């Protein structure tokens, strides 16, 4: 018979992934063992075909057997590297997609792209970035697993590596920081109006003087409410869902009019950039407008999300 038997095929399949040097020896031993087992079954009255089939079925997937012979791992990232892999992946997924989306949308706004164009570019970008991070990070660890290198953070774990307790965001320090920031901001606005931010003679205000008095009074009112909120959060001792919602509304009430004024060209003093930057004042003004818009929206979103997450953690804990 010239056709290969099941045993021939099994031994071939098992030897495919075994290093050349061990192959002949292992193949001969494996074949002998299979033949021994078949013979034992024949002795019990089974026929050749079913005995062979039963023995090979018991031996199982030949690649798995070969992995046992060669100590090859049958997993992509095993227990030794799993935690390092998972921590690094989470860290990268927190940082990189957000930075990429922010950077690309900022650049596109400066180039004058529409909102739809930006969404159309950022969504596929985010998907691509996430897939790339997942793939390359995992690939590095798969290679590490198979070459047996230590990872960068490996080394015995010590209690010093325990994470600090999560900040509740409602301590004395948080309140003082909030109040100090509000006070400084109010001081800057007043300084800007009465002295002027730009060191010219006479001083040149950065904010549009047309905002005085009513818009600025509105701003100070909102800032006073923010200060009250900071004190209430400290007094309650934690962020509650209601406080987080109030914080979100305050951010909304502050950011939306600010952005509206910005794009109406009424937030920044129209004299400011043409005076400071003689040649390209208008161009610089447009760029600064866009950057400020991003900063206002970014701070409002970040602050709202941050408070919401603290409220959620507090309600869980």
């Amino acid at each position, binding site marked *: 018979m010239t056709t290969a038997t099941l045993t021939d095929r099994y031994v071939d399949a098992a030897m495919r992934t075994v290093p050349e040097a061990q192959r002949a020896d292992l193949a001969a031993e494996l074949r002998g063992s299979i033949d*021994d087992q078949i013979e034992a079954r024949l002795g019990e009255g089974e026929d050749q075909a079913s005995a062979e089939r039963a023995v090979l079925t*018991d031996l199982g997937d030949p690649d798995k057997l070969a992995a046992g012979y060669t100590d090859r791992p049958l997993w992509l990232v095993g227990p030794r590297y799993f935690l390092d892999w998972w921590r690094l992946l989470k860290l990268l997924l927190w940082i990189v997609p957000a930075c990429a989306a922010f950077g690309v949308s900022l650049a596109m706004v400066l180039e004058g792209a529409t909102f739809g164009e930006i969404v159309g570019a950022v969504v596929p970008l985010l998907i691509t970035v996430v897939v790339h991070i997942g793939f390359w990070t995992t690939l590095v660890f798969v290679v590490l697993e198979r070459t047996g290198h230590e990872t960068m953070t490996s080394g015995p774990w010590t209690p010093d590596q325990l994470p600090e307790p999560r900040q509740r965001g409602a301590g004395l320090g948080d309140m003082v920081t909030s109040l100090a920031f509000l006070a400084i901001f109010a001081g800057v606005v007043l300084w800007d109006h009465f002295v002027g931010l730009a060191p010219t003679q006479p001083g040149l205000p950065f904010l549009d003087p047309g905002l005085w008095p009513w818009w600025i009074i509105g701003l100070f009112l909102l800032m006073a409410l923010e200060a009250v909120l900071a004190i209430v959060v400290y007094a309650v001792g934690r962020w509650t869902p209601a406080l987080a919602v109030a914080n979100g509304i305050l951010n909304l009430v502050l950011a939306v009019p600010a952005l509206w004024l910005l794009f109406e060209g009424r937030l920044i003093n129209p004299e400011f950039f043409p005076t400071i930057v003689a040649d390209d004042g208008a161009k610089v003004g447009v760029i600064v407008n866009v950057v400020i818009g991003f900063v206002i929206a970014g701070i409002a979103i970040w602050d709202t999300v941050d408070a919401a997450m603290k409220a959620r953690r507090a309600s869980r804990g």
Partner: protein
Amino acid sequence: MSETEILETHLQELRRGTVVLACLRLLVNPGYGYGLLEELGQHGFATDANTLYPLLRRLEKQGFLTSEWNTDESRPRKFYRTSAAGSRLAASLTDDFRAIAAAIDDLPTPDVQPDRRH
């Protein structure tokens, strides 16, 4: 997972290391793959072929077994024998197994209630 499967898993974990010890003790007299498989079964260490063959290779690589092809018979066979290092390993494993058995005997015995669900 059913209760018998869970029991099976625990028993497997408990017995895992004992196959190594049994091989090292049995192979004081040279033996080959299938013959050893049978012998293990007779001595109460039922083992799968796909566990035993890689195990023999690993012990050989670690120097606890030596091997030699025997081509006297019609079917050439690779015979394994416990090396000096293998005998020392078998002695320490045996001591440790006895120590574990003694330690278990010293443990308080939980009352075994008959399983009423059956």
